[in-house]
């Protein structure tokens, strides 16, 4: 009888341990999310954070300019990772991307905006 009770108790403890371990593992698996405020205007991007740890990076873009702008995130090699779509004057948009460590470029690819200054770099760390 005592042995059976001890066994039940052990089983309950094991189950509890399994649940806790699974939660911790879930939390570990969930990538960290970092928000980055980005302001767009003619013809400049300002990123209020210049780097973020690897994981989900949420770019919160506000267009303070008079023209429409977009935000394109590219790798250093020029591969496009994501784009907001055009953000009209006075509007906002969010672009959430899973980014690995490395250096990225933030550019506006509308008309000649990038050439006129709407480009900046962003670093993702380990």
């Amino acid at each position, binding site marked *: 009888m005592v042995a059976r009770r001890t066994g039940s108790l052990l089983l309950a403890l094991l189950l509890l341990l399994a649940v806790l371990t699974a939660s911790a593992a879930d939390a570990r698996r969930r990538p960290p999310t970092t928000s980055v405020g980005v*302001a767009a205007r003619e013809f400049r991007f300002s*990123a209020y954070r210049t780097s973020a740890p690897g994981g989900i990076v949420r770019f919160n873009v506000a267009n303070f300019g008079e023209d429409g702008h977009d935000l394109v995130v590219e790798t250093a090699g020029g591969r496009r990772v994501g784009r907001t779509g055009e953000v009209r004057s*006075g509007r*906002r948009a969010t672009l959430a991307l899973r980014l690995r460590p490395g250096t990225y470029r933030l550019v506006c690819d509308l008309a000649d905006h990038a050439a006129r200054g709407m480009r900046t770099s962003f670093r993702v760390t380990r």
Partner: protein
Amino acid sequence: MSATAARRRHGRRRAHARRPSGGRGWTEAHVRRLFWRAGFGATPAEARRWARRGKAATLDHVVNGPPGGARVRGPAPRVEQRPLDPLNEWGDDVLWWLDRMIRSTHPLQEKLTLFWHDHFATADQDTPLMLAQNRMLRANALGSFRELLGAVTRDPAMQLFLSLADSTKDAPNENYARELMELFTLGSGYSERDVREAARALTGYTADWHDDGTVTIKYDAGQHDDGVKTLLGRRGRLGVDDVLDLVTAHPNHAPFLVGKLWSFFVATPPSRATLRALVATYRGSGLRIEPVVRQILAHPQLYRGLDAPDMVKCPVVFLAGAMRTTGTYVTQDYPTWLLELMGQLPFSPPSVAGWDWGAAWMSSNAMRQRFVAGNHVVQYGRPRPRKGAAPASLTPQEAYARAWRAVGEPRVSAATRATLTHLAARFFDDIDARWRDQADWRADALQWTLRHLLLTCPDAQLH
């Protein structure tokens, strides 16, 4: 508590609200009026404490703030368990400032920061610049107007908003010069030529941008027009500080600014004698703001109609006040989007002229959003009813009194109190009398309803 006891208790408090205590004719009602006009309302404990201390001590406390300077007290703001990130999360800048209004030990400083944010209205600039401007306005809120004007003129957000940055001798921009006279210092008494000449004198600033959204404003003497100008009757090689000295020395400046400060605190216009006295105080102090504000806050006209307030709370004061007086802190992001829907999103005034005040706040949609805001304060704040804490066996008067205490014992007119008590009396009408005392679930709903209505009823819109 029996119905009679509850009535007695509420009645005692109402009687005490009118009873002179700390000084001649200085009551809890006076304290509440002062704390709402000069800040974001009084908690019941504050109303009682400062009614005992008297008018002079209360004014000193309100105007000077606590010894050692303003602090924030209470739990730091969090949204969805995370600390605020005003630069990178939308709306967190608004929550950051709202939190200061709720937790500051010197609410008048925040209230005047709001006044200056409206007076020197700036929008559509990078968040770091707007936050820096907000800190500058706070630091100068009660000091010298001339120093404040100098700081505003050199403030990066303002420089960019009104195109003062990069205004050069070859292409002087008139935006800042015009608003300087029309909106910031004079209102009238200047000519188009004065605007053009001031614009020339204000040339020379350049903006040097950094990648993180900050900007350094530099003065480049090579871009400044150093020729002779004539401004407001004075001729010479005028520069930036000459312009600011001339507009603040103009005879129209003191009545203009003092009148605007008065209307921020008192709904009815000042008499000529009052305006003259305020102007004399302002000029006599060397254009300092604090003595004028103190004089306005001490003026009998501010305390007229304690039972019938006539000043509409602007959305920021309505919400910050509801949260502060009920002990509710920033734990959700609803204030940001509700303030926008109510028509007053801090850091985003509609134009350089600021917001329209007074009855203009009370559009049908804005009032609907205030109703929604009340719901959120009850749901997420301290007024949230605890399940079963107000049983169905309470009398209507007891149920009302419990709700009234839970929302910080606000001023409520006799008509509203009667209406809400009547509502409490009829709230169980559809339940069989035999089951009424077991209907605690309905009593919980009654508390939600009463608390929400107390926070949003017509009385709650005025102060």
